[in-house]
């Protein structure tokens, strides 16, 4: 006979006490449509606060549909609620969009690395966000605004494809008005739409900051679609930003969140554990990074 530790070992299916894949229950408190495909969700965990840091993500589950990694868009907090903005792109996100207030989901996490908000104290912050890249960045932006005195100048750049894709429009309007930050916004195109603001890809906003932003006392936090990074980083380099002053958040297929399933691997990095937040300096030599 051999050891029978922990499990029943009957050869039949038995309940296993612990599993890194077992979600906790969270309830949907609030849901608001933001764009045609993006909606805002506020969830509450049953027994604890999520305990996340800005830039981390969690796995959201609908039993019978599946699980998907989603960025957390609210800043860290002691309360049991947290926020996500979810784009309807697949079966899980589609099912989350169909939820009503009071419905429950499974949550695992938080996972991954975070924006180094403590280490950035006393520095200038330049947020460069594209499309739903604003979602993870918002957790850091809101954190910085909640701790405004800890940081020097704050510049926020946000760009999206067209005015209909704008997220957090009320907050964008507030940021626009705030005297203690500088907010710049652009849309890639605007064919006959009602938009008085800047038109052009996000990098067309960078010249506005030239001679204003001191790259040596400023850290750039860049979050956006894969195509955005190369151009933004080129722009930041033109502004003489050192590579270790550029912080990025990368997207990958983070299926398990715990560094096992292999899907999010780029070179020797597991994005779900070693990322999604990286200093550009640390990943620029990785061939598969961007």
């Amino acid at each position, binding site marked *: *006979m*051999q*050891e*029978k*530790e*922990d*499990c029943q*070992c*009957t*050869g*039949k*299916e*038995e*309940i*296993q*006490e*612990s*599993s*890194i*894949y*077992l*979600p906790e*229950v*969270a309830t949907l408190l609030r849901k608001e449509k933001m764009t045609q495909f993006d909606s805002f969700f506020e969830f509450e965990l049953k027994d604890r606060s999520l305990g996340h840091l800005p830039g981390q993500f969690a796995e959201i*589950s*609908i*039993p*019978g*549909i*599946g*699980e*998907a990694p989603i960025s957390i868009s609210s800043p860290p907090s002691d309360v049991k609620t947290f926020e996500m903005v979810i*784009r309807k*792109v*697949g079966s899980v*996100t589609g099912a989350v969009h169909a939820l009503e207030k009071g419905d*429950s*989901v*499974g949550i695992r996490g938080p996972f991954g690395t975070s924006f180094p908000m403590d280490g950035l104290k006393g520095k200038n912050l330049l947020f460069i966000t594209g499309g739903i890249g604003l979602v993870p960045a918002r957790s850091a932006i809101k954190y910085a605004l909640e701790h405004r005195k800890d940081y020097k100048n704050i510049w926020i750049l946000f760009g999206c494809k067209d005015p209909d894709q704008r997220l957090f429009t009320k907050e964008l309007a507030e940021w626009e008005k705030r005297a203690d930050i500088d907010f710049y916004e652009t849309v890639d195109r605007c064919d006959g739409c009602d938009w008085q603001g800047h038109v052009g890809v996000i990098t067309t906003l960078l010249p506005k900051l030239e001679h204003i932003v001191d790259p040596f006392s400023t850290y750039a936090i860049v979050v956006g*679609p*894969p195509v955005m990074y190369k151009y933004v980083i080129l722009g930041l380099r033109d502004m003489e930003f050192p590579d270790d002053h550029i912080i990025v958040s990368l*997207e*990958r*297929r983070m*299926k*398990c969140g*715990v*560094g*096992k*399933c*292999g*899907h999010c*691997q*780029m*070179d*020797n990095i597991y994005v779900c*554990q070693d990322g999604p937040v990286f200093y550009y300096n640390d990943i620029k030599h990785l*061939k*598969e990074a961007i």
Partner: protein
Amino acid sequence: MDIVKISKDDFIAFIGKKLKDKNTKTIGVVRKGSHYVFDQLHSEKELCLDYDVTLLPPKKYFQPPRETLLKFAPFKADSYVAVNVCEPLTIVGVHYYDLAAIYLMDKAFSQDERDDHYIQKRKNSLLIGIYPTRHYKYRFARSVTRGQYRKVADLMLIHIGDNLVVEVLTEKGKKYLEGANTEENDYSMKEVEDAKNLVRDDQKLPVPIELVPEYLTQNHSHGVWEHFGEKCFSCGSCVLVCPTCYCFDVMDEVELSLEQGKRIRVWDGCLLEEFARVADGHNFRRTRSGRFRHRIFRKGKHLPLKYGCFGCVGCGRCADACTSGIAGPVKIFKYMEDHKS
């Protein structure tokens, strides 16, 4: 370490006795047509200790091709429970390279975050290894393993004439042997070592494994990836047969009654086109050459960096299984050596 001797017939008869213990399932190498496979033994006569290679490694007993992780009632998030199927398992006749692969799998599933679905199955297993007695033309295990098998095997068998010399490597192994008709080993150390090394590999990796991580870094842009990548069908045969490929996909399934569902994990492979594709359709490894390179980099550089041991154990199954005849690491490294940039 104890070392004893038992006649092959007595060992087979001993396994027959073990088969009567209904609390433990015994797996062994059995013949299947012109091939060999790991399968449950129903009679000791099925057990084959003299084989070249099995179609699949014994990995399937610890990470089944399809495994239920959770059960739930559809749309009821408070209904999730974790489940596992495990039972005492003895696997007889595992070659040392497949044991080396289990050593790596153990690290992968226990380091950082502990995966109990794997660990519980492993913990209840007893591994009886054997030094290969037959030649297999694709094998290059000696050049890429460094004795990791001794850290996972409970017993190691060495075939000498009509006898088996048994190295007893763990207490668990010693206990298992109780009641076996063993006797003192009277073979000399040289005879035992010669028997262990009876079968030489025809092939070897042309680069020492300690140098491979840096070698691959230097050869990231080598033409080999394009050269072989364009012949790759992305069929995934190489990763399907690999003893150290443990990547998986996770999905939900719901019964027709809509009352019960389960979250399952299934084997997945980085050579498959969809592997690195995210929800909006962007594929982070969309070229065949990129996927072809990733597999070799994962085995030769990424896993060694993460777990401290080489990610390929040289079993040669991928070289054999590959439709295009391009997957074998020896062939890939030889090409790089012959076409130095």
